[in-house]
């Protein structure tokens, strides 16, 4: 036991500063995302889910920390790796799973699938699957917020693979030029699908680009949800109070492949194990035990409850019928 403890990375300042309630909440919410996606993996293997399924496992602290930095009415604009954000925003787990199953009870009625989660009421504004093309949209949401003076902030996520493509550059150019209340967050998980950064980025520090867009920037290795919350909050406040955009680069890691079809052979086991040992969810769990004396049994009970919730969600999703045939004609045009 002692030997193991010595090898574990130290708990971070964010974890030390958080209250037990905050830790317990964040741990449970991260666990919900992970168990949801593990169920999705099983369902995919059984043929219940088809198409693309991009897992967020390993990156959950970002969605949870972001949610904690937001205010009612703020908007998340995410990529196709969007399940974590939807659950963090409070979207119904059954509706999320039913969407993966292509059922009528899905988050968008079964027409979107894994890559297009939207829930307007929860601040979940997508779910986009053409790399970079949501960056101008996010700038547009921020443009509207400024036009309407409604104080809403847009937080736009993109991957390290999205920084080279045109719309990213144009969206950020306009956000900087017009002083739009938006936060661009690059989730740098070190691989653009199967290609490591060294072969996709001329300069690995993505935030160096911020200067050219007239933006403030921030860059850090994600350790825990509270660190994400606190660092994002600075940018969210800057957007809301000064109407200025920020470019943030979060260094993170996905424990699974790019999608279900990717075994991730381009990464070494040592690299994966290194990141697993610093898994922000596991670190949060350790903080509950080491700093607050929470027992393994108590945390096991939390896990059991989450597993139960996600199993029920999966069963309920499976009970939801396929959309009726006429449903495909719906929402092609707005009829007045």
């Amino acid at each position: 036991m002692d030997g193991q403890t010595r090898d574990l990375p130290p708990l971070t300042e964010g974890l030390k500063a958080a209250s037990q309630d905050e830790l317990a909440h964040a741990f449970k919410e991260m666990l919900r995302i992970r168990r949801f996606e593990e169920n999705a993996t099983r369902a995919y293997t059984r043929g219940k889910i088809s198409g693309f399924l991009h897992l967020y496992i390993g990156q959950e602290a970002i969605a949870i920390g972001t949610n904690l930095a937001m205010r009612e009415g703020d908007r998340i604009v995410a990529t196709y790796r969007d399940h974590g954000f939807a659950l963090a925003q409070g979207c119904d787990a059954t509706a999320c799973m039913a969407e993966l199953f292509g059922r009528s009870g899905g988050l968008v009625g079964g027409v979107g699938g894994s890559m297009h989660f939207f829930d307007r009421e929860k601040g979940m504004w997508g779910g986009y699957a053409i790399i970079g093309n949501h960056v101008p949209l996010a700038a547009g949401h921020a443009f509207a917020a400024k036009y309407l003076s409604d104080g809403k902030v847009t937080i736009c996520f993109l991957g390290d693979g999205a920084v080279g493509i045109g719309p990213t550059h144009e969206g950020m150019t306009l956000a900087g030029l017009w002083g739009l209340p938006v936060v661009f967050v690059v989730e740098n998980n070190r691989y653009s699908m199967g290609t490591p950064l060294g072969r996709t980025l001329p300069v690995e520090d993505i935030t160096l680009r911020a200067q050219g867009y007239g933006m403030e920037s921030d860059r850090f290795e994600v350790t825990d949800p509270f660190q994400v919350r606190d660092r994002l909050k600075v940018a969210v406040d800057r957007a809301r109070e000064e109407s200025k955009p920020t470019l943030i680069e979060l260094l993170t890691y996905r424990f699974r492949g790019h999608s279900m079809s990717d075994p991730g052979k381009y990464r070494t086991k040592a690299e994966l194990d290194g990141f697993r040992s610093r898994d922000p969810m596991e670190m949060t769990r350790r903080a509950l035990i080491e700093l607050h004396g929470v027992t393994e049994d108590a945390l096991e009970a939390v896990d059991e409850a989450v597993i139960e919730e996600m199993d029920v969600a999966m069963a309920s999703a499976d009970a939801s019928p396929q959309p009726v045939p006429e449903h495909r004609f719906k929402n092609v045009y707005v009829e007045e």
Partner: protein
Amino acid sequence: MAVLQIREAIRDAMREEMLRDDRVFLMGEEVGHYEGAYKCSQGLLKEFGEKRVIDTPITETGFAGVGIGAAMCGLRPIIEFMTFNFSAVAFDQIINNAAKIHHMTGGQFHAPMVFRGPNAAAHMLGSTHSQAFDTFYAHIPGLKVVSVATPKDAKGLLKAAIRDPNPVIFFESEVQYGVKGEVPEEEYLIELGVADIKREGADVTLLCWGQSVAIALSAAELAQEKGLDVEVIDLRSLRPLDEQAIFDSVRKTNRAVVVEHGWPYGGVGSHLIARIQEECFDALDAPVLKVCYEDLPMSYAENLEHLTIPQPSQVLEALEEVSYRG
């Protein structure tokens, strides 16, 4: 009635809608201080200020996307492309975001907005600035597509397009901005999806829209001299398409010709012909013909460009051919 140029009718339509609805704004390259590359926004910056008449850098995918994102929040953007040729670099925004957002979000979001600007060949602009985008956009479910040929239609259809809850592609033409015509003094809208019979006739139906309307009317005059009574229908809207007007006319004349600014392969004209043969086969006395661009990139040289673009004389030949004359 006032006599206006098309550019003035477009300006008046935008101005009236901006006065009517605070959510309407105009965004594009040179729309503000320069007052539009083709002066379609003359006076608007002065009247509405920089909040609502917004000059952009040269970032078509950027400002098209900003427009869509703003429309999703309830604003009513008018996005001007200096030419639709430049919309090619915003194509993804239009077809993947504007056209699909309502459907792909299960109806939670929609994009009430207009993308407008000149389309198709003008005069000696070379291959990259002379393309017709009608077919590209009319192909996409989720978009509406309008093409105008007169000041009255330009104003009435643009006002309707701005109020439409869907994304509307609104085609104008560099060579038609100076075309004059009568425009009613009182407010009016023209419903999208209703064709206009420009000229009634008994012998042949001639379908046209946008720049091809003038060609069609010239050809109909030439045909009249030869004793052919041509019915000219300006479609005005390609999506929704006024199929009933087309079919009614073809069932009356039993013959049809399409004149189109656009390439022959898989185009709007090809679609119209397919629909006519599907619905009016028994009424047809001759194969339906199409007069359009030659299947080539546009040349700059004046003589070569002239040869590539449909001319009234060629339309006349087609009218005579379907009538078994000449």
